[in-house]
């Protein structure tokens, strides 16, 4: 059953990703699509009120500053909405303003497409904050990631050109033509299965067995959950995320949510192949992603099924601690692999209660740099960084000037690639080290010993890779974690974005060189193997010592 479910999932994912990828390519280059008659007028109005000329392209520096300005404004607005929600409407549970450090952390988290949550939505945020704050950033942070990918792709395909597109146009088109239509469909499917979508206050009833009052938390949840999955955001409407039955009620909704989580990052590989006019380039990248994903999924599934502790008098079965009955081992493992491979971070089971190797595999999938699918846009632009690193190393080995997609790779490009690749692991390890050294650190943990260390390592790895999932035993709502974590999430989002755009600008200015006999093929099996090796070596070198102290020690000491 479990194997059939996984094969069905992956096949359907690839089948759907191809047409969606080609559709997104049309959006990228401004071609007409079937939604154009409906959406073009809206698009024109947006440009008009923003004072944007749709055909005016930007130089890299201006494009980057536009992203930074837009994200800064988003950060401030989201911060203010949270602080002021007590005075704003649509607050049926009458929550007061969010504490400043938590509000700052949450703003940084949503603007950076991380959706790390040190709060539970149903006890902290008003419906207004959820809809106008969280939902909006779910959309635009995802669109920003895709826009940055578009810029990098343009860098490869343009020749001797100084401009790389218009941020406002990319942002608007991705949001209107890709994210909104998909979200409407997914949201309505989820509501039909039992995900709530209402402005009514929480429902209070009496329990059947008597005595207790039974609270059903409500709110405009489905609309936010659809984009949280599609945009690799991951921030739950409710505290326990997609483990909560009103966020993910049954086996069908769970399948749809898992599918939505990976569909756009997969599709973008085909967008890339189409854009560079060589489908094999996109195919070799998604092959690498799929291989790493399937290995991760297999390890998690086997570990959860067979490495769980057993008890006398209990039926021998897998590890069900922290998992819902509807998902069991199979669908929980599939979600766990998907949410950490993509930088989504939503959960349908508690990662903290996974077995040592199950939890470690999720940790490793993040530590590879969120490039196995990764975030929407961000996963692929970071993966292209790894591709360039691989081409560069291969070039050194044979003594030729490395080139990729007919563009020479030069020292400046490699400096940018290093910023893209090495910022997340460096920040993850440094921030983990700082957190562990804090005098009160032990008091934040639910588990003790090696697994306690894993809670901290997982938390900072998650934030430093814009994932957002957590070993939830870590008490994250402290001033220290909120502030350090907030800074970490912004740094690892915007430093690589800056490097990607500067890299794209530099590539775009170059002439293209003719492909010759001696050009390294980036589409054959050897290259796929080489790329996987480079990814694993970089990931392993960076994180093996930390993993030895955490999950590996945890496995051997129990």
């Amino acid at each position, binding site marked *: 059953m479990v194997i059939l479910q996984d094969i069905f999932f992956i096949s359907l994912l690839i089948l759907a990703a191809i047409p969606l990828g080609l559709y997104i390519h049309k959006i990228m280059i401004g071609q007409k699509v079937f939604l154009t008659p409906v959406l073009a007028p809206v698009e024109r109005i947006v440009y008009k009120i923003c004072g*944007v000329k749709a055909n005016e392209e930007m130089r890299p520096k201006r494009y980057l500053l536009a992203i930074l300005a837009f994200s800064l404004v988003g950060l401030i607005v989201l911060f203010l909405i949270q602080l002021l929600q007590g005075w704003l409407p649509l607050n049926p549970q009458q929550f007061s303003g969010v504490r400043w450090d938590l509000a700052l952390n949450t703003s940084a988290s949503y603007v950076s497409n991380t959706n790390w949550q040190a709060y539970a939505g149903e006890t902290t945020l008003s419906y207004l904050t959820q809809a106008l704050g969280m939902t909006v950033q779910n959309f635009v942070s995802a669109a920003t990631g895709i826009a940055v990918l578009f810029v990098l792709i343009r860098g490869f395909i343009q020749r001797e050109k100084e401009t790389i597109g218009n941020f406002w146009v990319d942002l608007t088109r991705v949001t209107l033509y890709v994210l909104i239509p998909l979200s409407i469909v997914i949201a309505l499917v989820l509501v039909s299965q039992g995900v709530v979508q209402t402005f009514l206050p929480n429902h209070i009833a009496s329990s059947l067995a008597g005595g207790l009052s039974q609270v059903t938390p409500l709110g405009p949840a489905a609309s936010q959950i659809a984009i949280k999955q599609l945009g690799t955001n991951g921030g739950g409407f409710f505290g326990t995320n997609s483990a909560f039955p009103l966020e993910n009620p049954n086996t069908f909704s769970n399948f749809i949510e898992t599918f939505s989580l990976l569909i756009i990052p997969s599709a973008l590989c085909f967008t890339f192949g189409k854009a560079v006019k060589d489908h094999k380039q996109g195919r070799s990248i998604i092959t690498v992603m799929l291989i790493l994903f399937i290995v991760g999924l297999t390890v998690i599934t086997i570990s959860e099924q067979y490495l769980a502790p057993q008890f006398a008098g209990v039926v021998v079965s897998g590890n069900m601690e922290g998992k819902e009955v509807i998902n069991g081992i199979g669908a929980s493992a599939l979600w766990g692999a998907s949410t950490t491979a993509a930088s989504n971070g939503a959960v349908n089971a508690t990662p903290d*209660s996974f077995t040592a190797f199950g939890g470690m595999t999720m940790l490793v999938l993040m530590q590879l740099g969120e490039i196995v699918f990764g975030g929407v846009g961000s996963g692929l632009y970071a993966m292209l960084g790894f591709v360039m690193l691989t081409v560069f190393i291969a070039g050194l080995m044979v003594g030729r000037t490395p080139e990729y997609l007919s563009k020479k790779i030069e020292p400046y490009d490699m400096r940018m690639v290093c910023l893209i690749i090495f910022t997340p692991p460096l920040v993850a390890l440094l921030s983990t080290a700082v957190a562990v050294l804090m005098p009160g650190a032990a008091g934040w943990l639910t588990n003790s010993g090696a697994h306690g260390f894993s809670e901290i390592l997982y938390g900072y790895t998650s934030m430093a890779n814009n994932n957002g999932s957590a070993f939830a035993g870590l008490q994250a709502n402290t001033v220290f974690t909120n502030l350090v974590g907030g800074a970490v999430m912004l740094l690892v989002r915007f430093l690589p974005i800056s490097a990607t755009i500067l890299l794209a600008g530099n590539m775009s200015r170059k002439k293209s060189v003719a492909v010759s006999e001696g050009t390294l093929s980036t589409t054959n099996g050897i290259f796929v193997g080489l790329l996987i090796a480079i990814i694993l070596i970089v990931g392993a070198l960076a994180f093996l010592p930390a993993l030895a102290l955490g999950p590996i020690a945890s496995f051997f000491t129990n």
Partner: protein
Amino acid sequence: MKTFLKQLRPAIICLLAMTLICGVIYTVLVTGIAQLAFSKQANGSIIAVSLEDGSKKSYGSALIGQEFTGSEYLIGRPMMVSNLSPNSTEQQALVQGRIDWWKDLDPGSSADIPIDLVTASGSGVDPSISPAAAKYQVPRIAAARNISEDQVQAIIDKYTSGRFLGFVGEPSVNVLKVNLTLDGLSWTD
């Protein structure tokens, strides 16, 4: 810096436009369609039982688990979220405590206990148990209520959902619906 400040104006207006589109219009549109087409689900799948005098009494959401401890009820999963490692001594002590509790509740049973009854879920309010966990409780419920085991099993079967497409996810039994039916209460879905 000047270029940056020049981007602030479009940034502010664009964010407002996106807030209007993605925050207001999108949310209202989805809510509107949801309320028209799926009003029951959109409002929490609340179970309203019809009483003899014609009025209705709410027993909360069919999707949120409730705590049952009585021998005459189908009992669900522990209502908590542990976040503990399954290998930790704390967690193993918790599980052992639950095993003892089940043995006390039903000393006559020699069957092994299904795992979902002694482990907590990720939500802490899992509304379901596995069909095996329900079956394990059938003899005890039948004895406590003085009805036949077949009757109890028939009610359980009625509220068992299968896998999506026959192979996606796991089958589950809705505990609250079974217990409402055992108590002779009826509601409209």
